[in-house]
């Protein structure tokens, strides 16, 4: 059938380009996730800090990045960063050109948005671990750093798993937005394929199926992991 020729690998088919696009999608998501998680912790700590300025900053941060559409955040970040860095470089090396990689712009803007939601995952997970654990560590003389690494964190990630698992899925889908600033991830490649082949249904249908598969795989893996991790934890008497 004609359609299979379209999707084949090699010169006539778009199969290999789509595969590379899928790779870019996954690379973007995988690179963004650790940043987003670390930022989530930082934003949470800002929101519970004893400095008023940090608390206000944390609140402002989450309000802004939860209220603005992701695509607007992406465009503002992309063009503004371009403008600022371009201006900085111009003042040092006049006439030089510089453009931000859309991959980096996508990574940063997605991290910012995801961490706004992630900070609440952190808050809930810390609440589930409970203050008593930290107090016990304190009264035994453990420094806050050791207490966090050895006592809180091992208990925390079990509670944070569902929340961050869902954010991962959101991240996977949001990578498609970066196609708007011409990153050659899956959606963008499909768009390119369509301009020459004029078969939008085939290609968009295909990538829709691919995304659904990715999401379903992630969700299943998450559920399995949750089940395994919660296996040893039965409710003890309090």
């Amino acid at each position: 059938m004609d359609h299979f020729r379209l999707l084949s690998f090699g010169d006539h088919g778009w199969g290999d380009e789509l595969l590379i696009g899928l790779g870019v999608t996954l690379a973007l998501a995988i690179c963004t996730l650790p940043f987003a998680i670390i930022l989530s912790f930082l934003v949470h700590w800002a929101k519970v800090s004893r400095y008023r300025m940090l608390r206000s900053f944390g609140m402002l941060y989450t309000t802004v990045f939860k209220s603005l559409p992701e695509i607007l955040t992406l465009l503002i970040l992309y063009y503004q960063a371009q403008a600022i860095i371009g201006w900085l470089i111009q003042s040092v090396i006049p006439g030089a050109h510089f453009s931000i990689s859309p991959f980096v712009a996508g990574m940063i803007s997605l991290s910012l948005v995801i961490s706004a939601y992630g900070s609440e995952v952190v808050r809930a997970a810390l609440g589930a671990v409970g203050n008593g654990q930290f107090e016990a560590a304190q009264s035994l003389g453990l420094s806050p750093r050791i207490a966090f690494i050895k006592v809180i964190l091992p208990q925390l990630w079990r509670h944070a798993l569902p929340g961050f698992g869902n954010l991962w899925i959101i991240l996977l889908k949001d990578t498609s937005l970066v196609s708007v600033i011409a990153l050659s991830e899956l959606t963008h490649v499909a768009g390119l394929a369509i301009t020459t082949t004029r078969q939008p249904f085939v290609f968009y249908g295909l990538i829709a199926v691919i995304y659904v598969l990715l999401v379903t795989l992630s969700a299943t893996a998450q559920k399995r992991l949750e089940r395994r991790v919660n296996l040893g934890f039965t409710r003890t008497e309090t």
Partner: protein
Amino acid sequence: MVSPPAISFEKLNKYYGKFHVLKDIDLEVAKGERIVVCGPSGSGKSTLIRCINRLETHQSGRLIVDQCEMNNTPSTVRRIRDRVGMCFQHFNLYPHLTALENCTLSLIYTRKMPPKEAKQRAMEYLARVRMDGFAQKYPSQLSGGQQQRVAIARSLCIQPEVMLFDEPTSALDPESISEVLDVMADLAIGGMTMICVTHEMGFARKVADRVVFMDAGEIVEIADPETFFTSPSHERSARFLQQIINH
């Protein structure tokens, strides 16, 4: 020769915002003394002992622990915490570590003790609370009473000068209460300075040197157990005793 007090409160005051939760607390605890703090809920008794290891901060007055005055400097706080052990109502054992690991964590990471030595000391104290057979068990595999005994061993491992107990048996079912109280009585016999917030009046009568009765943030009466339980000098103390004895 009179040795300096283990703990000394001088006109200590604490506020939660506008709420005056500890009012002009004056109390001296001698070395080796066993104090039971009791009172109605909200009287500030937990807050009082939590000030001793800086889980709560005081706003005015002085708190001196083992001749070291408590203040905001991290090194002072750490030095005092090194000498004070605490047992919590909800045990607060680390659920992801075994009983043995619970005990050795602080020794290895704060005292920088070599793991072998830490393990040895931990097993000694676990044996003292009769939990050495359970060293490899996780908290979820232990009953409440067993968990609390491990928690006591965990605090003893750092070899404190003072042991604080914040309602250690309030979250236990009746069978477990006595096993924990027995361990605490053993400790008392061994000469440990202890401050215990508890409702267990039988324990207070048997073990305490002095009973401190608190109400609404102030110390109302301090007396030895016999006097306190049979002829309290204040009306509020009498009322409190009436309520808990008529149970």
